[in-house]
């Protein structure tokens, strides 16, 4: 075959360019520590990398969700433990006062009032800006005297009474605490939960608190807080289409349907202590035991949820390193291999350069005199 000078030089240039390109690629892999730097480097690998990255970010979010739910359940547990302690203190008082004097019972009644306030406060526990035991009505306290005006219509005013009362006065207040409406139900109030329709002018939409003053011929009647929330529960995303339901209905803890209403028992006890009613006090002690059992049962029901959260979190925590390994295997440069390749390419490149310099220089011209 006839070989001309330009054939020699174009072929040399072409091969040198090709080798430089390979060198550049290996060098890029080593410098970036990644073997896939653009989609065309490895289209399938690129797709997998994106998928792994999405999965990793999503799992991070799951872990975040789970941690928040765990915090919530743990603070619920802590709150209810304190509630349990407080109820047990009330039970002690009730038991002691079974043999108490009129004077000591009046003093004890004040104590129970304080404890009642504390338990209500715990039932209205706030996690950040949201009430934990109000179901979906996270913007209002779970237990208390609250009435909602919505769409220009006022709801019923609900409150509990420890005994029948002939005179009931309800004073509705606005945010600043000023009384804006006073309602006096015609028939007074009955023992248990009362629901009184709004009368008088309806204020702007919003939540209004009210106070209840009730009395009968014998004297004052103790009122107690009712539930303001709904039966909504909190759903937490633990994984792909896997959600955990966490109960947020305060009634399930403090006044389960068909069982005892913690706050009513408290109110009954205060009434009994104030009225020096030994029989009633005797009767309430076992009921306070039942209240404790109710709360314990709720706490027990939460335990499996905590376990479920923990095991799911562990699963994800173990899954992340696996994902990262798969991502690394697909994306990262195998340094040993890359360096070895670099050495080989370097050798090839240098020998090409060496031969090039030998072949390209001489021609017959150099040898003619």
């Amino acid at each position, binding site marked *: *075959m*006839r*070989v*001309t*000078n*330009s*054939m020699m030089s*174009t*072929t040399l240039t*072409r091969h040198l360019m090709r080798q430089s390109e390979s060198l550049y690629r290996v060098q890029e892999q080593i410098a970036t520590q*990644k073997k*896939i*730097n*653009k*989609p*065309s*480097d*490895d*289209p*399938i690998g*690129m*797709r997998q*990398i*994106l*998928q792994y*990255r*999405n999965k990793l*970010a*999503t799992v*991070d*979010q*799951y872990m*975040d*969700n789970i941690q*928040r*739910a765990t915090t919530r359940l743990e603070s619920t547990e802590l709150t209810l433990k304190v509630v349990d302690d407080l109820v047990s203190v009330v039970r002690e008082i009730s038991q002691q006062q079974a043999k108490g004097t009129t004077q000591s019972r009046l003093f004890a009644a004040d104590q129970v009032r304080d404890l009642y306030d504390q338990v209500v406060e715990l039932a209205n526990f706030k996690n*950040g*800006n*949201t009430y934990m035991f*109000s*179901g*979906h*009505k*996270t*913007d209002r306290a779970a237990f208390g005297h609250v009435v909602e005006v919505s769409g220009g219509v006022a709801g019923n005013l609900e409150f509990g009474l420890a005994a029948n009362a002939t005179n009931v006065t309800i004073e509705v207040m606005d945010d600043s605490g000023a009384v804006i409406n006073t309602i006096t139900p015609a028939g007074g109030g009955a023992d248990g939960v009362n629901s009184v329709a709004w009368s008088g002018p309806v204020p702007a939409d919003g939540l209004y608190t009210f106070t209840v003053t009730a009395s009968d011929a014998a004297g004052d009647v103790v009122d107690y807080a009712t539930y303001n929330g*709904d039966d*909504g529960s*909190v*759903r*937490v*995303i633990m994984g*792909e*289409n896997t*959600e955990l339901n966490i109960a*947020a209905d305060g009634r399930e803890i403090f006044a389960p349907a068909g069982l005892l209403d913690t706050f009513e028992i408290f109110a009954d006890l205060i009434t009994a202590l104030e009225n020096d009613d030994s029989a009633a006090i005797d009767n309430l002690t076992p009921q306070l035991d039942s209240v404790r059992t109710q709360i314990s049962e709720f706490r027990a029901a939460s335990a499996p949820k905590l376990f479920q959260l923990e095991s799911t979190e562990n699963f994800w925590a173990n899954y992340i390193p696996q994902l990262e390994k798969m991502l690394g295997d697909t994306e990262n440069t195998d340094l040993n291999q890359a360096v070895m390749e670099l050495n080989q390419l370097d050798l090839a490149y240098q020998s090409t350069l060496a031969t090039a310099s030998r072949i390209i220089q001489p*021609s*017959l*011209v150099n040898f*003619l005199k």
Partner: protein
Amino acid sequence: MTDIYAVMSMAGNALLTQQRAINVTGNNIANVNTPGYSRQKLLLETKIPVQTAIGLMGYGVEGVSVERVYDRFLGVQINAESETLGRYDARKDGLKLAEVIFNESDEFGLSQSLNKFFTSWQDLSNEPSGYNERVILKAQSDVMTGTFNRLYADLIEVQEGLDASIEGGVAEINQLAQQIAALNQKVMEVEASGDVANDYRDQRDMALKDLAALIDINSFEDSTGRVVVSVGTGQSLVESNSFRSLTTQVNDFGLKDVAWVDMDGATVNITADISNGKMAGWLEARDVDIRGYMRQLDILAETLTQRVNTLHQSGWGLDGSTGTDFFTGMTTASGSMDALLAITAETGGTGNIRVTLVGGGTAGSETVTTDPVTGDIQIAIEDGVSTGNQIATALQAHAGINSVVATAPAAAWDLSAGTNTAILSGGSSARTLQLNTAVSNDLNLIAASSTSAGIPGNNSQAIAIANLQHALSMKGNSITFENYYNSLVGAIGGDLQSADAYFNHQSAMVVQLENRRESISGVSLDEEMINLVKFQTAYDAAAKLITTADELMQTVLNMV
């Protein structure tokens, strides 16, 4: 008869011929690096012998002609392969620009912002009444829609860049056509007198090769040595010493088509007939590849909007609002064909679909087909028999078409009259996708609750929307949004990888052919040096012959 003068004359001829040969060698050496130059050689022949008493006596040498060493068939083959090389080269360059846009390897792309969009909904589900979570969701939504918009705008920019290349290519083609026509003239002039126009032919071959790299041509040499070049479906580009030119014209997509200009200045659109050369590569990248990517982005934006909006509309915002769209920016595409057919809308917002009527169908059962990449719709009708109503009914049945109204229901469609193509434009969802401004102005409108009564603590709607991340919503409900996009990125990489592989293969082939051409026609300095020495020695010898003849002459004179 032979005499000393004959020896003298023969030696003189030899001197002249060897000198000419040195001249040709010199020209070869001088052009060793000239691209497209074919080495030349002086064709030597013995002169017509002289009749003498002892028979025919040789009468020396003469240079007949200067020939170039050239393989005509190889030239044709190189031109044909250069066309294909040009096509892959141009397509590869176009796709490289697209790849840069979709480069997700640096972790800032649509894949990630889609993911963040959904995880932000999870965050909101953890705190359905939270203001911070809403602010973050808004920000992530803005990032995602912004990324959609940017990708789309960047793809349009790549299309425009390719448009500029096509225009530049047309200018280059016109210049080459003009050059070839001028060289035709020169070749003809030189060769009319019986000479061979070696250097002009070399230049013309180069120009033809450059032209072939740009566009697929048909060329042949006529009896007078002039090449005839045609493009497209036989539109003449160069004939004798005159040439026609190409031009560009704006098509329905707002991009440039290539057209041929005839003698009267009328244009013939030859875009669809360009099948090779860089022009074909640019057109392919612009009209098939990039357009396909844009369409897939449109479909993604469109489906995402539909799914999120459906759920969001049935949820409740913190302020008790419901029925709110989360995303806006969807527009439906529409277009009309002549006065007979008004395609009022295409389903959804994936626009720039071409609807074309072609012959070969049966009236009443017209077949509708869809291009899987571009979404273009083609309907085969029975020419002159299928009525507007039948066509409308067939089109209406297609999933991509929302509604078709035949403005002349009973009229039969004649394919030869009017235009048979309509572009449904206006629906570029990925470019116009945005967060509903009402929502971004009032974050309480974000619907996290599934019931009115559940406000503010209910998070079911936020969970439902977050779960869309894993819903099989795309490609006939077979893959998720994220995977659809990730596959798109993979597909772009794959397209480029294969275009690159074709290019490398093709360029290896062209290099091999060029080496063969070079092997035949190229200048070898070693060879030229040998020739130089050879001719110089011959020259020296011829000079010696003259000296000898002169001495003979002296001897004769001295005898007198």
